[in-house]
């Protein structure tokens, strides 16, 4: 058996917002996060959104996922927070989570892009990060929105 090296991919923002959704940990660029609000302050909205926030005169529909990225019709008991995020195209929405932390990317962190053999249509998974002995899934607002739209159609919304 042989020892080989392969190309590593390092990238993304220097600072990340690290969301916990059940056992899943998801990171998004911190520059896309405009605020973190208490979910209990959301008002009702049309499904598949589980609620909405009005923030600086802009509506942010709120979406809830399972740890497997399945779109939920209502929040889970552990989801107390919602991050408000804005994508490159200007898309604005909010995502429920159990907890939010800030994470600074350092050069000694191990990143890998999601390989071709794991990519499905509309999947929001962009990269994997090994941090704190865990797998962190790196994504961004635009990729999450693409997935929400795809999953919403699957649910007939």
């Amino acid at each position, binding site marked *: 058996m*042989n*020892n080989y090296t*392969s190309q590593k991919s390092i990238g993304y923002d220097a600072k990340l917002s690290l969301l916990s959704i059940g056992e899943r940990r998801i990171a998004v660029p911190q520059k896309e996060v405009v605020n973190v609000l208490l979910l209990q302050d959301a008002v009702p909205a049309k499904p598949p959104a589980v609620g909405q926030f009005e923030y600086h005169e802009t509506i942010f529909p709120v979406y809830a996922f399972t740890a497997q990225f399945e779109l939920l019709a209502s929040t889970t008991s552990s989801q107390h927070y919602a991050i408000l995020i804005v994508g490159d195209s200007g898309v604005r929405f909010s995502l429920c989570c159990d907890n939010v932390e800030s994470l600074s990317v350092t050069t000694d962190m191990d990143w890998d892009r999601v*390989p071709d*053999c*794991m990519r499905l249509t509309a999947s929001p998974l962009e990269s994997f990060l*090994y941090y704190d002995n865990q797998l962190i899934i790196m994504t961004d607002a635009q990729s999450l929105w693409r997935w929400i739209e795809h999953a919403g159609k699957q649910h007939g919304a």
Partner: protein
Amino acid sequence: MQVSNMARSKAWMLTSHGGFSFAVGELAMVEYSIEAEIFPVPLTPKHCPAVAYWRRRFVPIINYGKLFDPQVNDDIRQIGVLAYQTQPHTPLQHVAIALDHSPRSIIVDDEQACELPMVFAYRYPDLAISSFAFDDKTIPILDIGYLCSAAFVTRQSSKKTQGRSGPGH
């Protein structure tokens, strides 16, 4: 004295999780591990449900047995890490295959060449480069680059929408 011109090659014979045998070239096998850190990943093809954190990088884990038997579970404990190139003179890529047993080093000669199992012609026409007879079984030699390609995922997805067909392994 008779001199044989028969070509002989070293290879690794692997038994996937779920019990399906296949072979790869001698240089493709990098490491066999029974203690890799394995992480399930959502929103992935059914045959590629997890990654292994290996030598400070994530490598996808192919649950090869699931291509032939959807009942094969994702309780993966053993992996074989393989190296492959998508093009000549490009960096090596790595992938892990879920295994049930440790790899077996074998020597194959041209005389053992035989036709591919029918299931490859029906379901996975480009997945095996060739095959050979070994221990009363037909062992496919896999094209690992194709197994790990976007083209293979696309083909699987399009077949799913068309409905599944073809015989079992």
